């Protein structure tokens, strides 16, 4: 187990392993994305109230739920960076921040498009929206701290620390804005039979889209990490050999 852990920390090992996985991951992602998107856009029945607008759910829900996973991910990777000084973990913290910012921005944008039709407003200072907006600000803060610190080692640890502090803060912000103002719907529980609300004809495409977006997230994270590995290890022998080929 420990061997596996330290092996995983080696950028070279990760690069080679992820290189083997990537084609499969990308293929699965495209498959799920095509099926999910076609189903969601063309075949999901219209909602009895929202009509076609409802279909933005198939983008918004997967993206928004994934964007909540960035801070925990970065906090875990940051802890590993601080405690074990694993370079790979720092690379994950580094590439996850901009990716998280994009996901959060997309969640906000898709939610806002949905909101204009259902709530009657593009933006509202609701608990979930506000906490997601503040999460975006915190991520942007981490990105700008990284770019401001010249020393890569100091930047790695500073961002790791800020990710951990930020993760705690996202939780506190979430609770504080929740009792501040709430409009967003609660989470939906899905029914198993098609003659109930939230039947399979709604949630199966959502599940497929969820898997597709999660795969997209994984693939982007791996690709960005691979980029970062090449960038940082550009002077090492194995990267030189790779370039030669």
């Amino acid at each position: 187990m420990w061997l596996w852990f330290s092996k995983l920390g080696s950028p070279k090992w990760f690069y080679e392993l992820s290189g083997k996985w990537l084609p499969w991951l990308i293929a699965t992602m495209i498959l799920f994305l095509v099926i999910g998107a076609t189903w969601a856009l063309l075949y999901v029945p219209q909602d009895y109230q929202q009509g076609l607008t409802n279909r933005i759910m198939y983008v918004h829900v997967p993206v928004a739920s994934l964007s909540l996973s960035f801070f925990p991910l970065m906090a875990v990777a940051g802890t590993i960076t601080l405690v074990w000084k694993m370079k790979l973990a720092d690379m994950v913290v580094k590439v996850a921040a901009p990716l998280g910012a994009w996901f959060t921005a997309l969640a906000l944008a898709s939610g806002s498009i949905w909101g204009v039709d259902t709530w009657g407003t593009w933006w509202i200072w609701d608990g979930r929206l506000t906490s997601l907006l503040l999460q975006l600000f915190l991520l942007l803060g981490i990105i700008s701290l990284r770019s401001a610190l010249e020393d890569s080692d100091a930047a790695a640890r500073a961002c790791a620390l800020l990710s951990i502090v930020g993760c705690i803060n996202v939780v506190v912000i979430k609770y504080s804005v929740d009792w501040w103002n709430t409009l967003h719907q609660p989470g939906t529980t899905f029914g198993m039979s098609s003659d109930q609300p939230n039947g399979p004809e709604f949630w199966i495409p959502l599940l497929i889209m969820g898997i597709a977006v999660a795969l997209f997230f994984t693939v982007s994270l791996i690709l960005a990490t691979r980029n970062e590995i090449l960038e940082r290890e550009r002077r090492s022998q194995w990267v030189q050999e790779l370039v030669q080929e």
Partner: protein
Amino acid sequence: MKPHRRKRLGIILFIAAGLSVSVGLILYAMSQNIDLFYTPTQVAEGEAEVGQRIRIGGMVKEGSYESAEDSLQVRFETTDYVNSVPIYFEGILPDLFREGQGIVAEGTVDAEGIFQASRVLAKHDENYMSQEVKAALDAAGATPENHQLSPQPES
């Protein structure tokens, strides 16, 4: 015990004590009414003071919607299927506003028990149904619980 061990233990205890007291305070705060979000029943029972700025959440009662011909004034009742509170509002309602739909209104309760809303927002519920299913459910006399707004804001 070595002195530095004792010191470290001291810090840990200090921090743990601080954190546990703060958790206790949060639990206490949760037991207090701090968010001023009321259900129609709470308003009907007079829990909200007159003139106090609150938010009320409930469903628009079927058949209660009336609007003026020449102005934006509307009147409807909001209900949690136990009690209803009449709401008076002047302004543009959101597209999703319709009878049987969940809403959140901000405003004050006046002396006659009418809620003077300064803002009405449609709260779309967490249930999705195709139009056919909805029709089938209605035909079968579905209970309102299926699309009842949760009485408390999510937390």
